[in-house]
């Protein structure tokens, strides 16, 4: 035994004699993790969060979250002598006078963007592979909470520096809250500490941004990861992999080394971006004053789709009995996102209601094998993308010399037309991919080599695929549509027939598939 080994042994002994942890730790260390590139997306989220904690804490050491007015006398000449909030002035100081301050600000902002991008990518991975199915519905819902929190945390974050751009964002935020019927006006006055821009909002969202929300994040992420640990990771179907096992590498040493190394790579790439690519150069925008605005006002991209929805809303307001209801704000900013996020949170339950499938699932789906779900996902992405494009309509208009009117009308129409179209196209695409899989299993892959048959015709040589590959392409289940009788066993009409009918229709649509190759079919072909 080397001295290092002895020392580790002594520490382990010390801890175990006081906690009895050895048994549990041994079990945990034996857990294995299946390998697939898409399983790293969740890791990127976690690592970016850690980077946010580190860089954010650095910023708090100098940032002054106050709306107190000061006269700027720092080193950045163009703004010297201007009145501004202490928040903005201190952000200028971090950028120009603290060594590494600008780097940290840029790391913080870049990692916020990477964080949100990774969350979205991770969410899509989980959705399209069906990883949210029983028993993982809790984790799906926790994930939806994390995206929502991320949106709010990011909005609060880029509002803190109190520059002209972020102040405009806050103006819009206050108008959204103010539009809530009955209580909106009161809530805005309370949150902002008076009429907009008030005196209290920046210090208040600062506390939420650096303490409360990160605290909730930490708790939710911990539960999220512990559940993954406890329920064991899902895996893609393949030889030797079943619903009853997990095949992969144990945590020590390979997985640990790769995961740890990957953290530094994510951090390194973030630092590199922050070194060479400027982000949020607040000194160019100037301090916030409500009477002014910078042209091309854009939020960060993860809020951009909401802004795009707001931009395309029709000018509807209801004026009645001395009251005003702003549908042009409520629908795009609160009602549509509300429906979208609630729908997402409930989706695992909706799907299992449609399929009638209440079993546990640990093998992942290939998206093409569940056309309905895949199509629904692409439909939602299309919806959000159109909104996002419309959120940048002014920029697009100048870049491509279009009129804003054209883009706006394009968005207003296509937000209704393109998502359903995307659904239909995706579903067809999935089915033709299934057909291609079927061909591949039956006839092998095309080699591009032509041979001349004795009869004189040319045929292409097909090469059979490996046994493993064949199994991968055929091991999925193909769902059967639900059969629900309107009449129960005693001959009485059931309650809720309409609901049953809908369910049967949906489950039929869900079960559409190209029949996969069976063992018999393969045998027959081989005998030819």
């Amino acid at each position: 035994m080397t001295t290092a080994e002895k020392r580790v042994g002594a520490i382990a002994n010390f801890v175990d004699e006081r906690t009895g942890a050895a048994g549990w730790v041994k079990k945990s260390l034996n857990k294995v993790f299946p390998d697939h590139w898409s399983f790293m997306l969740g890791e990127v989220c976690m690592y970016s969060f850690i980077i946010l904690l580190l860089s954010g804490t650095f910023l708090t050491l100098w940032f002054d979250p106050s709306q107190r007015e000061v006269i700027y006398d720092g080193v950045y000449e163009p703004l010297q002598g201007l009145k501004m909030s202490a928040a903005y002035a201190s952000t200028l100081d971090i950028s120009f006078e603290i060594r590494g301050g600008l780097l940290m600000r840029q790391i913080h902002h870049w990692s916020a963007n990477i964080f949100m991008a990774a969350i979205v990518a991770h969410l899509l991975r989980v959705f399209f592979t069906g990883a949210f199915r029983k028993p993982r519905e809790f984790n799906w819902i926790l994930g939806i909470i994390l995206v929502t929190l991320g949106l709010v945390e990011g909005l609060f974050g880029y509002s803190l520096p109190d520059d002209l751009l972020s102040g405009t964002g806050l103006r819009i935020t206050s108008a959204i809250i103010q539009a809530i019927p009955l209580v909106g006006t009161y809530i805005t006055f309370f949150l902002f500490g008076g009429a907009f821009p008030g005196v209290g909002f920046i210090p208040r969202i600062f506390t939420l941004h650096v303490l409360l929300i990160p605290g909730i994040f930490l708790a939710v992420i911990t539960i999220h990861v512990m559940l993954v640990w406890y329920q064991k990771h899902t895996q893609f179907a393949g030889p030797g992999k079943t619903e009853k096992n997990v095949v992969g590498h144990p945590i020590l040493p390979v997985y640990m080394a790769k995961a740890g190394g990957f953290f530094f790579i994510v951090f390194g790439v973030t630092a590199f971006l922050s070194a060479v690519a400027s982000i949020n150069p607040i000194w160019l925008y100037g301090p916030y004053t409500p009477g002014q605005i910078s042209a091309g006002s854009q939020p960060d991209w993860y809020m951009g789709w909401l802004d795009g929805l707001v931009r395309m809303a029709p000018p509807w307001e209801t004026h009645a009995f001395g009251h005003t209801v702003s549908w042009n704000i409520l629908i795009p900013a609160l009602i549509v996102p509300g429906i979208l996020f609630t729908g997402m949170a409930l989706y695992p339950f909706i799907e299992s209601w449609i399929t009638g499938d209440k079993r546990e699932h640990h093998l992942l789906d290939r998206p093409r094998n569940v056309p309905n779900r895949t199509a629904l996902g692409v439909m939602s992405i299309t919806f959000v993308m159109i909104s996002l494009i419309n959120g940048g309509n002014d920029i697009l208009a100048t870049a491509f010399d279009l009129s804003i009117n054209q883009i706006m009308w394009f968005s207003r129409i296509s937000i209704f037309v393109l998502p359903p179209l995307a659904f239909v196209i995706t579903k067809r695409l999935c089915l033709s991919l299934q057909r291609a899989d079927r061909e591949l299993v039956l006839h092998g892959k095309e080699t591009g080599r032509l041979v001349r048959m004795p009869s004189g015709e040319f045929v292409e040589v097909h090469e059979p695929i490996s046994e493993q590959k064949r199994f991968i392409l055929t091991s999925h289940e193909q769902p059967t549509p639900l059969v629900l009788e309107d009449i129960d066993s005693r001959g009485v009409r059931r309650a809720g027939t309409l609901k049953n009918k809908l369910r049967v229709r949906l489950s039929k649509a869900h079960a559409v598939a190209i029949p996969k190759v069976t063992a018999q079919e393969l045998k027959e072909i081989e005998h030819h």
Partner: protein
Amino acid sequence: MRTVSNEIESIKDPGPAPHVLRAADVNPRSEKRAEQQVAILFALSGVGSLLLIYSYVFIANDVFIFIPVMGNQHAQQLGLGIGMAMSLFFLGMAAIHWAKTLMSETEVVNHRHEFRSSDEDREDFIKTVKEGVAGVQLGRRKLIKRSMAASIGLFALPPVLLLRDLGPLPKKQLETTNWKSGTRLVTDPGDRPILASDLEVGSVVQVLPAIAESGEKGEHPERLLSDIAKDPVLLIRLRPEDFNLTPEKLAMTHEGIIAFSKICSHMGCAVALYEQTTKHLLCPCHQSTFDVTRGAKVIFGPAARPLPQLDITIDAEGYLIARAPFSESVGPSYWERNSQ
């Protein structure tokens, strides 16, 4: 296209493909090489850290260097950033390369069990809960049940109440601005009163209400940001024949000079863009477009109401003044707004 059932016989699992050994597992030379590569990666990380330290200590804050493609760059920021990026990135690469080429890798199979507890456990659990609930005897203790419900209901109020002092009540703040009858229009910035005759046709000026000189000790009172959030007004001079207004609205103009609130009736951004040729005002936030000749009627975008118009005239000295306060609230809508 048809639906299929699972009654068919699937293709059998052929079992995992055989384990393939890596170069470093079989060839000592590859092993040596991999070891050296890992060491080099660690060394590069060290170089990054040194670069960071060097940049922090030795590069002055005002040095710029020219980098092709990127242009002039702040040398210290770049040195710190590249140093940090290298030190982190290569550390990660080293660990991963080490794991991939040299660490013992064996695929392992873990078994799963269903999460559902055994039937006995579930029954026991239900029994325990039932007994527990029965022990509380809520069914029999009506009085306790009701008083408990009432007190819990009341208990929810204090936390909400305690937030009451976050801010003042709205009162009339959203309905009023600092424009009074007789208030002079002054330029923003500059605070200079404006002679109607000085405004040329086609010009646009941003104005604010003049603040009364009589601050307490005679000093100039400050404008609050919350005033600047609702007071700004845009002054535009057209040829009188360009207008297409109702008689009441026309009476609110002065010789072709028309004044609108600059605060967007949609969500309160500053409506900052004026197009000379079309005589349209455009809000950069969501592109609501207002036609100046028709009293800032909304001709495009999500805004639902025209920009409120300020009634203006001139005083004895010829300076522009407000004849009356705004007759409606400026800025975005809210529940209590009477928009009729």
